[in-house]
């Protein structure tokens, strides 16, 4: 059963005076099933970020539709958008986006507090996630006191604590060293195994090789896609690299 359906998505940016227009997304179609782990790859300027912004309801498409769990995003009113995002979507960003005024714990709890979850339930929701992500020990610390990897795991905890229908990740390993990257990718896999649907935008072949399926975007369209099938991470890594080489050659 598909949790996300993207149909004929088009996004055209026009300059303020209506002179030049840039077609960021031409015609994007794909769907994501419940519990799937999908990576989206593409070069800079391919429209990845635009796509993610539209999926995150931070931006509206020029035409086409995004349907999340049977609900059309374009039918959500502007003033309900923030609540919608909070309820249905989780985000992990390249630059962590943790608030420096909050402890790690408060950063993770923020979406729950914003949804007015009673205080008594906060601890029950926090503890299992924190221990699963291995950040129980640093909950009382502040973002500047912990490593990049720990920050990103805290951000992941914040993203999943509300139990979102879809976890959107934008270059989640982009600011991490290789060791932190490995542990972060394992974390994602683990989250996914617990049933969380993940959609990740990335440059990194290594990151993509952990996903179940990889979509390649080029010139605003889904150009190609690869399923992991039975292959292990290494084999999938090789397949992705080959696909990318073809992608570059053909342009």
């Amino acid at each position, binding site marked *: 059963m598909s949790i996300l359906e993207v149909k004929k998505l088009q996004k055209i940016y026009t300059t303020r005076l209506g002179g030049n227009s840039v077609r960021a997304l031409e015609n994007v179609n794909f769907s994501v099933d419940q519990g799937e782990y999908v990576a989206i790859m593409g070069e800079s300027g391919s429209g990845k970020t635009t796509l993610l912004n539209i999926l995150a309801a931070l931006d509206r498409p020029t035409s086409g539709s995004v349907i999340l769990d049977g609900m059309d995003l374009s039918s959500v009113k502007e003033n309900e958008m923030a609540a919608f995002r909070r309820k249905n979507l989780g985000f992990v960003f390249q630059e962590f986006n943790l608030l420096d*005024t909050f402890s790690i714990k408060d950063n993770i709890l923020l979406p729950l507090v914003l949804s007015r979850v009673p205080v008594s339930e906060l601890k029950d929701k926090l503890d299992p996630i924190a221990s699963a992500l291995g950040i129980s020990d640093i909950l009382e610390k*502040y973002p500047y006191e912990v490593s990049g990897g720990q920050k990103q795991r805290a951000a992941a905890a*914040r993203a999943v604590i509300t139990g979102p229908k879809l976890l959107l990740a934008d270059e989640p390993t982009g600011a991490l060293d290789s060791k932190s990257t490995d542990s972060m990718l394992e974390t994602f896999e683990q989250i996914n195994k617990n049933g969380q649907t993940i959609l990740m935008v990335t440059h990194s072949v290594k990151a993509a090789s952990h996903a179940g399926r990889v979509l390649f975007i080029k010139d605003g369209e889904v150009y190609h896609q690869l399923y992991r099938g039975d292959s292990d991470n290494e084999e999938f890594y090789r397949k992705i690299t080959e696909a990318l080489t073809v992608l570059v050659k053909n342009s």
Partner: protein
Amino acid sequence: MIKFYIRTALNGLKKNLKLYVPQIISSAVLFAIMYIMFSLCFDETLNHSRGGRYLGIFMGLGITVISILSLVIIFYANNFLMRQRKREYGLYHVLGLEKKHIINIMLVENIITHTISILSGALLGLLFYRLASLTIFNLYKLELTGNLTIFSFSALFFTMLIFVGIYALTYIFNCISLIKLKTTELLLSSSYGEKEPKIKWIVFILGLAFLGTGYFLALTIEKPMEALAFFFVAVICVIFGTYFLFTAGSIFILKALKKKKSFYYKPEHMISVSGMLYRMKQNAAGLASIAILATGVLIMLATTVTLYRGIDDDIENKFPHDMYFNLREWSDNNRTSRDFTEDEAIAVLKEACGSLGLKVTAFGLKESMEIPFILQDDTLVTAESDDGGISFNYNFVSRSDVKSITFITDKTYYVLTGEQIGLNDNEMAFAKLSSDNWSPEKVKLLGLELNKTYTIKKNPLSSSVAEVGNCFLFVVNSDTFNRIHMELKNKYGNDTILIRGEFFADIEGEEEQKMQLFETLCDNLYQKGEAKGVSCNIYNSKMRWEEREEEYLLNGSLLFLGILLSMVCFFATALIIYYKQITEGYDDRNRFQIMEKVGLSKPEIKKTIKSQILMVFFIPLLVAGIHTLAAYSILSKIMALLTTTNIFLLCTGIVFVIFSLIYITIYSITARTYFKIVS
């Protein structure tokens, strides 16, 4: 190369216009105020008017205070600008400019901004000088005769001297801090990791102690002289207390709020509490400064406005009659006499009035003895100084165990109040003149026993007795009055002067005619006295009209200085608020962008921002209000020494309301800048 410096400097200024404009404006206003004060000092017309003698003193004082304030304000603005621009200078350095080049660029930038400040300041000064001097004449209630100076070169010269000096200091300061810095430090943005502030218990307790002491002094002191002595102690305590409590107390409260989970984990509280906790560490000093400056402005304006607006009231209370002449007890050859008897004085007055064609509408003689006593059981013993005489020493009389008793006859009481009280030889009417609660039914003094038969509610002497020490009034009949007089003479010798006499008169006529009469009377009394072989003490003679003019000159100067100083403090407050809004705007921009991504809608964000900055900027106003309220208690006692008017509370209230309105205006103007940065 010079061209390059100028181009780079201009670019830098253009890019940071938002930061430089307020600095230039406040600098220019300070310059203008200083120029006006110097010009007032140098203005011939003003100095030759009757207000000249006060003007010089008060403007001199003002120039000193404002020089110091200008130094502080300009340094504050300069440091703020330096911090904001360090990154840019760091970039220049990385791009290959040497530090000496950057210093040159900075020099050009400073020359440009300071020249603009000085030019516009001088222009403002020129424009507003006329307004300022007309305001002074108005406050003095004097007619402007002669021409005002249009431009005073020496005023401009001295003002420039001070400001160029301050600017040079800031430039040297900047150069040193630039040279000391490493390139990487220059490049480092100001947003390094901030630790969550810890509660500084020692500072917190010290703050409580200081504020407690200050408030205790302000609220419990009853005696005006003590109030005067302890006022500055209280002020210093409150200033320290405010700084300490803003630093430690705010964090204490916020941490307590954070610990209360059911309160903290609510959307509207979580963001603002943690935001303020984070912010308090950097801003405590700034907010405390705003609170103290605001309190200063409030107190300065409330007192000076009260003194000025209360002049007519005060004169009416202190001088109910047109003119007063002092008579003195005179002893020669073992015989006490007075300069003039009542009849002689009336004769002199009538004669002078007759020659000028004026009519006396009221006349009276007031005689009193003010003697310090110490109460032992129910007996009053005269308080003696070390050499065995009666001590009239001021410090002595204001001692708490000394009761200062003023004796008047029932006849004088009738003259003062129009009320007849019949008193027998061992009877007295009693009145409290100060806050002391002593109220005897019966006292013994100098071998006499006096029973209280009457208690007077309203002080009939309000005019002449200041509420210093423990003062009481005994009204006795003439025989008893003379007996007390004789007893004291016998005990302390004939040349001890005890009786103070004063006769007063009301005259029908124009003020100028009264002036003429007053002068004639003084002359006549003096001559008559010479003829009798006594030197008449006419120098203590007073005329209501003259007293009023004097008060207008003195209190008008005070009010004018108060207004100028308040303006300076106010500009300092506005500048601090503005720069705070900008720094916090840049700090918060990032934070609110993240919140939007995490799922906070724009209206929600705006609401949080509003409540947060509202709290941060209105706490100082609130604190200033509370401080002023506490200060009111002690100040009203000091004011009792200076004036008899009762409009102090009203003036304080009005000043507070007006100040709050202006504060809110400044806040909303600067808040707009903040919102622009954040969104």
